[in-house]
C-alpha cells in the first residue's frame, strides 16, 4: 500500500521528470511499434502471396475416373495437403474463358478442348515451402496417368528467399530496435531514480529494509513503462490511421501484439528500475 502511494506520489511530486521518463519510454517503444506495424503488414502481404502456392497435377485424357479418385485420396492423405480439387477439361476451358477474355474467340471456335483435366492441390498454411511443394508434386508424378505436376518452382523459390530475408531482417532489426529501446528506457529510469537518490539515502540511513525501498521504485518503473507503452500505442495508432487514410491500405496489428508490447513495457520498466536502484542500495 505504501509502495503504491509512494509511486503515485512520485509522479505527483516530480511531474516533469516522470513525464519525461514516460515520454522517452513512449518514443522508444513507438519506434518498436512502427517496426511491428511494418513487420505485420509485410507478413500479411507475404502470406497472401503464399496462399497462391499450389500444385497443379495434369492428368492424361485417358485416365480413368477410378484412378483419378485414387490419386485424389492419396494426395489428400498427405498431412501437409489441405484440399485436392478435381478440374475437368470442361471446367478448365470455362475457367480459361473467364480468366483470359482476350482469347475468348479462340476458345469459342475450338472443335476439340485442348486443355487437360487436372487436380489442384492446396497446401496447409506453413506447409508451402519449396521442399514440401516439390515432395507433393513428386508424389503425384509417380502415377503413370499423370502427365505433369507444376508449382511454379522459380517463383516459389523466390518467395521463400524473400520470406527468409524478411524473417532475418525482422530478427536483426527487431532486436536492434528493442535493444535501443531498452537502453533508452533504462537510462530514462536511471535518471528518474538518480534524482531521488537522497530519498534512497535517507531510507537506508534510518533503517528501511531493501525490499521496502525497492517496492515503490519497482511500481514507479512499471507505471512509467505502462504509461510509455500507452503513449507508444497512441502514436503508432495515429501513424497507422494517417497512412491508411492518406497513403495506402494497411492493417492494424492484432490486439495480442499490442497487449504483449504494453506488458513488455511494464515489465521492462520494473526491471530497469530494479537494476538502477541496486547501485544506490549499495551506497550506504
Amino acid at each position, binding site marked *: 500500500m*505504501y509502495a503504491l502511494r509512494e509511486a503515485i506520489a512520485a509522479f505527483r*511530486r516530480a511531474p516533469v521528470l516522470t513525464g519525461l521518463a514516460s515520454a522517452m519510454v513512449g518514443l522508444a517503444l513507438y519506434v518498436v511499434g512502427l517496426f511491428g506495424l511494418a513487420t505485420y503488414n509485410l507478413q500479411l502481404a507475404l502470406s497472401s502471396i503464399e496462399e497462391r502456392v499450389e500444385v497443379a497435377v495434369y492428368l492424361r485424357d485417358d485416365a480413368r475416373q477410378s484412378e483419378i479418385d485414387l490419386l485424389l485420396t492419396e494426395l489428400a492423405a498427405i498431412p501437409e495437403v489441405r484440399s485436392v480439387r478435381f478440374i475437368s477439361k470442361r471446367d478448365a476451358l470455362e475457367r480459361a474463358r473467364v480468366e483470359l477474355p482476350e482469347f475468348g474467340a479462340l476458345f469459342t471456335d475450338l472443335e476439340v478442348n485442348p486443355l487437360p483435366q487436372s487436380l489442384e492441390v492446396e497446401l496447409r498454411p506453413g506447409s508451402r515451402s519449396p521442399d514440401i511443394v516439390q515432395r507433393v508434386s513428386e508424389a503425384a508424378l509417380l502415377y503413370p496417368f499423370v502427365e505433369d505436376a507444376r508449382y511454379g518452382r522459380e517463383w516459389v523459390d523466390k518467395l521463400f528467399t524473400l520470406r527468409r530475408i524478411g524473417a532475418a531482417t525482422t530478427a536483426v532489426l527487431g532486436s536492434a530496435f528493442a535493444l535501443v529501446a531498452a537502453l533508452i528506457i533504462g537510462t530514462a529510469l536511471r535518471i528518474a531514480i538518480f534524482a531521488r537518490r*537522497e*530519498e534512497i*539515502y*535517507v*531510507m*537506508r*540511513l*534510518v*533503517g*528501511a*529494509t*531493501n525490499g*521496502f*525501498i525497492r517496492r515503490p521504485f519497482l511500481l514507479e518503473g512499471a507505471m512509467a513503462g505502462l504509461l510509455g507503452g500507452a503513449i507508444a500505442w497512441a502514436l503508432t495508432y495515429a501513424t497507422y490511421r494517417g497512412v491508411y487514410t492518406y497513403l495506402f491500405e494497411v492493417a492494424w496489428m492484432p490486439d495480442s501484439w499490442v497487449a504483449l508490447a504494453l506488458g513488455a513495457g511494464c515489465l521492462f520498466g520494473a526491471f530497469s528500475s530494479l537494476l538502477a536502484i541496486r547501485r544506490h542500495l*549499495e551506497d*550506504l
Partner: protein
Amino acid sequence: MIKLTNVSREYPKRGYALRDVSFHLKKGEFAFLTGHSGSGKSTTMRLVHMSDRPTKGEVRVTGFSSEKVTQRHIWKVRRRVGFVFQDFRLLPGRTAQENVAFVLEVTGTPRAAITSRAQRLLSQVGLSTMAGAYVNELSGGEQQRVAIARALANDPLVLLADEPTGNLDDRATRGVLDLFWDINAKGMAVLMATHDLELVRRYPHARVFELDHGELVFDSAEG
C-alpha cells in the same frame, strides 16, 4: 553501547585512515570525538554507523558486531542508531513534519500514529510551530533540529552526530548542543565528531576522544 577493538581502516590508495583504535562508549555517556581534518573522525563515525567496515578489528554497536552483521540485515543496526550530518541531508520539497514522518513511514510505524508522533518529535526539538514549513524555508539551526528529530524517530539507543554544528552560528550551535544534552539526560548515548576544540572545552563533563593521523591519542576517561 559502542565498542571499537583494535580497529583499523585502510584504503587501497590513501593508506590507513584509522590504525588500531580501541574505545568503549557506555550507555548514557556523552562523548566528543575530536581531531584535525583528516584525523579519522568521519571514518570512525562511518564505521560505527556500519556504512563502512574495518579492515582489521571489530566494531560493536548496540550488540551488533561488524564481523557478523550482513549488508542484508544492516537495517537492524540503523534502527538503533540515529545519525545527524553537518549538511542536514533533509529531503527538499517536503515540510519539517513530512521529513520526520517519512522516517516513521519507511520503518513501519502504523499510519494512524505517524502524524502525532512526528509532531511530538518536532516539539521535542522546539519546532512544533514550524511543522508545516518547507525545510528550505528554515534557518540552518532549525534544519539541524529537524534532522535531530528525524534521527530520534526510531527511538535509537545511540545518537551519532558528524560535525553537526559545522554550518551553524554560535547561537544555533549552543541550541543544538543543549538539545544533545537533553537527549543524553534521558539515557541515550551521544557521540559527536567535531574539530571545534573551543566547543569541546565548553562542556567539561563530556568524555573526549582525540584522533590524530588515524590513531587515538587521547581518551579523557583514561586521563
